[in-house]
């Protein structure tokens, strides 16, 4: 029944990490490991997806994610077409399915989809031809599976194992597709304690049912953590009566060196970017020795290469 897997268990689409088996996640991470050296070579290319056409369908503006997908596809020798639909056909009133049908008629092999609505990638996946794979590059508040995977890749690189970790996710979990994907990945990979920390206005109803422990106090939530993942706080959240001010938020939920000291001494600090320095994270922490924020970006390319290679290349998971 999982629309992401073929009857024989191979990855058909990547729409969410919710419900994917641990073996699938581990296989993607292992495959990413094998692509790590490609970016360090003089000729940064492998011929795995030569002749394949990958379309970046971005119904919502994004520079970072789109660029990393584009680099990943090009390193696999695929032909990449970027469509910034937020400013083109959608404004002309073209229906989303018409856009998808037209691109399918151009013999696309893969769609990388970003959309402001939760479930948009599922919707497109339901309507594409059988040979086309869909990768969710972020849909509404729902999922950002490649970001979740690259975060797991980062944790594995720095911490080795998952089974003995305490991981805290701090901030606006309510609006965060990244946090949802991280939570599903962490619980699937066997992290025994996943914590979410934030004010009640920024935590989703019934979040405990995702398998996390809830904290409203940073000191208690960070105590003994191995990994601290900070989430971006979007400015518009200030206007919706969820928070009184950025200053007050930073005072109680911003990551400062003092608060980080409550975690384990070798704890790593992560952030999906882009950061609001002085709002959710202090510069001393973002640029400090425990920060692994820039390696996350680097690993993102290898992880996206792995996902695309497994999908378009049909490699077994």
């Amino acid at each position, binding site marked *: 029944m999982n629309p992401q897997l073929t009857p024989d268990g191979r990855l058909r689409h990547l729409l969410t990490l919710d419900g994917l088996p641990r073996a699938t996640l581990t296989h993607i991470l292992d495959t990413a490991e094998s692509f790590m050296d490609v970016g360090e070579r003089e000729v940064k290319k492998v011929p795995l997806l030569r002749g394949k056409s990958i379309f970046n369908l971005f119904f919502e503006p994004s520079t970072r994610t789109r660029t990393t997908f584009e680099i990943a596809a090009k390193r696999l020798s695929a032909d990449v077409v970027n469509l910034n639909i937020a400013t083109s056909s959608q404004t002309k009133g073209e229906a989303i399915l018409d856009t998808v049908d037209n691109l399918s008629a151009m013999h696309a092999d893969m769609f990388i989809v970003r959309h402001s*609505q*939760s*479930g948009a990638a*599922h*919707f497109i996946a339901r309507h594409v031809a059988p040979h086309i794979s869909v990768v969710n590059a972020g849909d509404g*508040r729902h999922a950002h599976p490649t970001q979740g995977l690259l975060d797991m890749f980062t944790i594995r690189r720095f911490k080795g194992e998952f089974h003995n970790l305490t991981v805290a996710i701090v901030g606006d979990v309510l609006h965060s597709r990244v946090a949802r994907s991280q939570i599903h990945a962490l619980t699937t990979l066997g992290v025994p304690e996943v914590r979410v920390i934030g004010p009640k206005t920024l935590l*989703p*109803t019934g979040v405990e049912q*995702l398998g996390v422990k809830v904290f409203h106090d940073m000191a208690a939530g960070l105590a003994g953590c191995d990994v601290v993942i900070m989430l971006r706080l979007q400015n518009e959240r200030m206007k919706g009566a969820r928070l009184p001010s950025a200053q007050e938020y930073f005072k109680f939920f911003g990551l400062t060196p003092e608060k980080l000291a409550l975690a384990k001494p070798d704890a790593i600090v992560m952030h999906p970017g882009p950061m609001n320095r002085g709002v959710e994270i202090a510069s001393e922490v973002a640029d400090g020795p425990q920060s692994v924020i820039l390696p996350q970006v680097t690993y993102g390319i290898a992880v996206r290469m792995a996902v695309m290679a497994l999908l378009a290349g049909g490699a077994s998971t």
Partner: protein
Amino acid sequence: MKIHIKNGRVIDPASGRDEIADLFIAAGRIVTSDAPTFHANRTIDASGLVVCPGLVDLSVRLREPGFEYKATLESEMLAAAAGGVTSLACPPDTDPPLDEPGLVEMLKFRAKNLPGPRVYPVGALTQKLEGKMLTEMAELTEAGCRAFTQADAPLTDTLVLLRAMEYAATFGFRLWLRAQDVTLARGGIAHDGAIASRLGLPGIPALAETVALATILQLMRETGARVHLARLSTREGIAMVQAAKAQGLAVTCDVATTHVHLSENDLVGFDSHLHLVPPLRSLRDRDAIREALRDGAVDALCSDHTPVDEDEKQVPFGESSPGASGVELLLPLTLKWAREMNVPLPRALALITCEPARILDIPAGELAAGANADVCIFDAQAEWVVTSKSLASQGDNTPFLNHPMQGRVRYTLIDGHIDFESAR
């Protein structure tokens, strides 16, 4: 035209009648049997079939005027007849809304000249449904409105609601209200619970219903207004209405068939056919609805028939238009609930015949001698599958598409005429 319906299981929930018997119809009315002198123009063999009053549906959107691309009066009247419905209430959320007597008269006139059920418009409570100025309720009542409602349009001003209740109470008019606090529901598209949190769908808390209900019930106590609460969706909401009834408040309520069978758990997969108003709630709420229907805390079941253009559903969940087509599924979904809950057939049929007729205050929903000959004859065992071809409605936007159903209408008689007859 004289019609003789032979050997059916005649169930009349209003009178408690449940027996294998014949039914006689003459001059549009049910008549007492007088076999030797009754010469029927048409005899219907109802052996093995149930003969009951024509169904009364408290919410069927006919989409005219203004939304003919979604459905037409012709298509939805036909669909209602195919569903065994002989009387229906249509909400005023058309374009323009039913806020003027001329519009109501036009709708009634057009409906009267088409085959199909009796149409009872529910007038707009406020002009243009804007929630600011009251409509001419007395004029609208004279034009044929049975009650007044905002449908799903917001009414943010509690003072306007108070005035509407006071004014309606002056004349004894009834208000049909959907209990939803607009500000608490703002931006939401799914029940605010674990499933919406998992799927990243903005939530509408159960509080949006209970806070609005508390306001409505308190205003009722102050004004003495009679209120019908449409489409309740939460366990707490039903409990509040039950308590209000126990205190003697003149309040009734209904639920939609979708909410009897579906819950937030069905949203996994983001099927836009499940985008409904109110949202599908938790299993706990759904189970409370199922119990409340059995014990009478909820007065009636309705289809909340909302045909939507296919293009408006072929988009991501949050961008889709809410609503489901359902007038043809009212009977089979009621029967399904009754089977699953071990509810006797007469009790189940009461929820879609005499009880809604009582709420609408119309002479319908019964088979007593002298009553209008509005009759539904159905095969309770017939199995069929819901497909766009098997539905007469122009809207095939139902979450039950491709689902098997048990129970199918064979004949619908309205005013003593056979308005629908299935090809078996």
